[in-house]
């Protein structure tokens, strides 16, 4: 049960955090311009990067516990756990990458451009 919760969290955290951070930054952009305060945007990005990294690590540690093997195509609780752990790692990595890409505009652009 605890493992299931951890694995589901690892799978869903990345995409959800990515979506929320993107919407938050998109909504904050006009305010950041009006207040001339870009750290807010960076803050959202860093927090979400940290969470996705965390969920990736969580998936990785579960995968460790399950014997560090790639999920084959067999059924059963262990194989299912491995598949979910792999999914968690990859989805977290993908979300991390997208959030990272979305941080680039903060670095290059001012809030009002």
């Amino acid at each position, binding site marked *: 049960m605890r493992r299931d919760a951890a694995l589901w969290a690892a799978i869903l955290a990345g995409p959800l955090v990515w979506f929320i951070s*993107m919407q938050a930054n*998109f909504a904050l952009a*006009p305010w950041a*311009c009006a207040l001339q305060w870009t750290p807010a945007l960076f803050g959202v990005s860093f927090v979400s990067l940290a969470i996705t990294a965390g969920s990736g690590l969580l998936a990785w540690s579960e995968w460790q516990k399950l014997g560090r093997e790639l999920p084959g195509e067999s059924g059963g609780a262990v194989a299912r756990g491995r598949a979910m752990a792999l999914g968690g790692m990859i989805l977290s990595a993908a979300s991390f990458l997208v959030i990272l890409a979305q941080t*680039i505009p903060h670095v290059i652009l001012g809030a009002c451009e």
Partner: protein
Amino acid sequence: MTPVTEPPLGEIDDEGERRALERSWRRRPGIAGWFTVTTHQALGKRYIVTAFVFLLIGGVEALFMRLQLARPDNPLIGPDKYNQLFTTHGTTMMFLFAVPMMEGMGVYLVPLMLGTRNVAFPRLNAFGYWMFLFGGIFLYAGFLTNTGPDAGWFAYTPLSGPQFSPGKRVDIWAQMITFTEISALCVATELIATILKMRAPGMSLTRIPMFCWSMLVQSFMVVFAMPAVMVASNIFLLLDRTVGTHFSNAAEGGDPLLYQHVFWFFGHPEVYIIFIPALGMVSSIVETHTRRAIFGYPAMVLSLVSTGFIGFGLWVHHMFATGLPQIGEAYFTAASMMIAVASGVQIFCWIATMWSGRVHMRTPMYFVLGFVFIFVLGGLTGVMLAAIPLDLQVHDTFFVVAHFHYVLIGGALFPLFGAFYHWFPKFTGRMMNDALGKINFWILFVGFNLTFFPMHILGLKGMTRRIYTYPAEMGWGPANALATVGACIILIGGIVFIANALASRVHGEIAGPDPWDGGTLEWAADSPPRNYNFVNLPVATSRYPMWTPPEERVVVTGVRHDRREALVTTLMDAEPPIWPFITALLLGLGLVGATFRFSWYYPAFGATGIGLIGWFWPRRPEGVRS
């Protein structure tokens, strides 16, 4: 469902079970049978054939547009008809062809691939089909009475609003969306339930075919994307038009840009809703015709899932020219570029599969290769469009027209043609002619590129979209003439396909259950499948049950034959019911009426309620209180 380690050998009364199943799964004779069908093969085929008819209609509309644009200042079709033509063309292709076609393929193939007897909600399936059909008829009733929508397939407010589009044209468009949305949502719901709960024993989620994964991801995207278009078309647009709300009225605090946000929050995932099932089809074709298990199954599944998520974070790239803050737009540039990684991974995996497989170059593989060529090109122009500065130049020009036809025809129609050639033996029991198929492919491939490649250059040279004519001195004439020639070649390709399909249906080589020696369970059923798919439900002992040696295959026994039953659920219809049709008819009439007068919604919902009560009323006392 625990995997079976050593299932015992058992005796099966094959003939007896077959007779019992034939009896309980038979369809009602005569006209009643036509309106009460709830088997997934019949409904899937109806979806496919109806959507194909709409493809032909939409194609003919496109041909008329191409003829109009073939030369400058062409007097063939006036602006009014032209605007109706391109709006109806776009609407037809998106809502009446592409999505229903993909869902039809899903409805037909998913239960077979999962090794079950029907989808989870057969009546909902029938209801969805009728809604789709009525929606299509409604749109074309408008079009044929010169009330075709004319504000573009995305009907931006305020152009589509009450002030600038009086009359019923846009109302018909907006309400037609309701019909097709309901239909898409019905199919998505039943496919999710089917894939999650009705898989054959032993078929863990890590074993379902790639096509089922793609339909699962697509269905979830439908569930979360379609409500947005309901809000856009049915609430914002239709309420503004019929009862005078102010969602898009800037004078009363509304905002026309919000309509664009909400519409594209649906509209961009819509592209993936069309495209993702096509990816599943490509995987099925590639693994069958390269004779090897697909390379990188987990990577492909995860890239599908990633695409499903990231697809919801791209919508603003349709709005780069609207003057939003640049930093906000740039987030969408980033997401739009990153989604290319997911598509890239899939392409690489297919190439790796072909690389290490034993490729049999039959027609489906030709279409897959055509898909790779066209879709990669379209994907790369997509990366260009993701860059804000480039998009500012080519947005709303023929460059974009070229791009999305490369992505949608290359990414969805070519796999679909490949899929027709691949599964035609399953649908009809006969093979399609392979030689004619290859000719068909080359005609379509050449015609397609001839039509759409010049449009890239036209767009860069300044030709904007949705113009019914252009002056001769712009110099766009030759390229447009070429595109029109290409469109005629596509028409010939379409005719060749239809001829091949019709002739093969009657005279084609008898296929047998498994003509390609495929690995997945749809090839275990008869061709065409019986109403109950399998005499004995199969057990999935690996990802490719049909590639495991026959002596290791396992079947299920103990499922009842005397009524329509499948594993995990009892299918509720003892007799094929008429209620889905009646409910769809009542709701349909109500929705049509509501485009003229809002108060029609009340009887519409009342009547639907009555229909639903009839639908769900328990048939007979099934038991007493214990």
